[in-house]
């Protein structure tokens, strides 16, 4: 796999955000057979920024949870441009618990600028919703595979990102803060976002090097269908590997995956 250094970090960010880039629903449609969408958090409402349900990956029953921003403007309004409300994260957690009960692996597709920043989201506990997902996913007794397919925007992305295997598409990005946010805080100038993007080390190859993700799926020079089928094959192999592990070993591996991330002296 050739690492294309000629593409800047910010160009990757722009590719990840591209309005025509396939999001969660595309991968569900092309990867999952007999998909049945399941709605609602059974607490407050149903958040259309997260599409979730069950179906088959090849012939293995799986639970799929995907961020989705929609295609048309109407759909984007409905889906809040892919920024989940607390209900979205609670729906995700509800269905992960259900997956655990029925021993189904969980596949998460991540692609969102971040958790929704609004008064209502705060009133209903956006922070708590993410915190609960991190906490519960750390102990979920079934394999979790998370795939960053677009923009992995901070805590709102990580809320579906606690997993046994993390995958990124080549042009996806994953960051603690958006390059614009970083530039405006540090240099009081959002137009310096391209610099911030380079410094934040947010590309798939950066994260592979840091061992934050286990796999990068090549995109450059491939069609969407080819990318999707390479991704499907990788996910399937990982599920076959993970699902035979004793639960304790699975959870110890997950704990260790995150436990080792750090750089101190």
């Amino acid at each position, binding site marked *: 796999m050739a690492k294309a250094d000629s593409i800047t970090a910010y160009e990757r960010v722009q590719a990840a955000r591209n309005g025509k880039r396939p999001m969660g629903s595309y991968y569900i449609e092309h990867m999952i057979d007999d998909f049945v969408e399941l709605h609602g958090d059974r607490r407050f409402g149903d958040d259309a920024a997260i599409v979730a349900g069950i179906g088959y990956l090849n012939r293995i029953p799986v639970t799929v949870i995907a961020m989705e921003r929609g295609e048309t403007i109407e759909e984007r309004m409905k889906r809040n441009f892919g920024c989940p409300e607390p209900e979205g994260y609670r729906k995700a957690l509800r269905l992960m618990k259900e997956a655990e009960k029925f021993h189904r692996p969980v596949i998460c597709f991540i692609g969102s600028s971040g958790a929704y920043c609004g008064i209502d989201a705060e009133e209903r506990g*956006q922070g708590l919703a993410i915190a*609960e997902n991190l906490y*519960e996913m*750390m102990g979920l007794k079934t394999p979790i595979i998370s795939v960053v397919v677009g923009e992995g925007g*901070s805590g709102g992305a990580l809320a579906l990102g606690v997993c046994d295997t993390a995958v990124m598409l080549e042009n996806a990005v994953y960051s*603690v803060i958006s390059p614009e946010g970083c530039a405006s805080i540090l240099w009081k100038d959002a137009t310096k976002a391209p610099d911030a993007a380079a410094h934040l080390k*947010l590309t798939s190859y950066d994260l592979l090097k840091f061992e*934050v993700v286990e796999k990068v799926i090549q995109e450059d020079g491939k069609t969407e269908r080819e990318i999707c089928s390479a991704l499907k094959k990788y996910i399937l192999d990982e599920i076959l590997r993970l699902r035979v592990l004793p639960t304790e070993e699975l959870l110890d591996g997950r704990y260790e995956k995150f436990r080792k991330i750090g750089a101190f*002296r």
Partner: protein
Amino acid sequence: MSGLKEFFTSITKGAPEQQPPRVCKNCGAEIAYPDYVANHCICPECGTYFRMRAVERLEATVDEGSFQEIDRKLKSKDPIKFPDYAQKLDKAEKASGLNEGVVCGTAKIDGIDTALFIMDSAFMMGSMGTVVGEKITRLFEKATAQNLPVVGFITSGGARMQEGIFSLMQMAKVSGAVKRHSEAGLLYIAVLTDPTTGGITASFAMQGDIIIAEPKALIGFAGQRVIEQTTGEKLPAGFQRAEFQLEHGFVDIIEERPRMTYTIAKLLAIHTSNVQ
């Protein structure tokens, strides 16, 4: 004030008595340092809560001489070589007298053995990079191994952007350690102080068995300016304050600072009582 004495002597700024007076941002009152500490770092004139330093919190919370610090020397390795970060760390160290934004250790609170972490906003706003994440993770692991409850005093602007993805991943790392501590049947009390925001609210601040907040503390996920810019709405009065969080069901107790240690001790005692 023996702990304060040691602390201030160690950062060569003289004994606590020689500390400059504190000036209240709200009413302008000047408060002699010993009076300031005796009054729980609250303005005696107008009642405004100052942000407490970790050493001041420690002094106000633990039984004298019982604190044993762990991992004091841990420092960041600047994992993504972020511009000016190394200098910022040096500056924060000198300004705060600390190596990082959290102080961890074990102590007795009213005679009860406890693991303790205290964040300090004087070090880069208490933001969480890999050192803060590692220290808190190690503390929970130690508490799990030694069957200790954890009391955490939280103040933080969130994940530290200068360590990029490494900072974000600390949220998951600490959450894992909190979960294992909880599964061992052990108590975690989170005390949220001003400000508790961003990735900290979205991880261990909201994972306590019991969540206590100080009056009027800012507690939330999204920053207020970001919300205003995103929605174009004006924020209601008291938005994201401790009282707002209590009203919406996200904190158990709002406790005044002078009663904080008493309340924590009472909660610890209830959890360590073992009536047959």
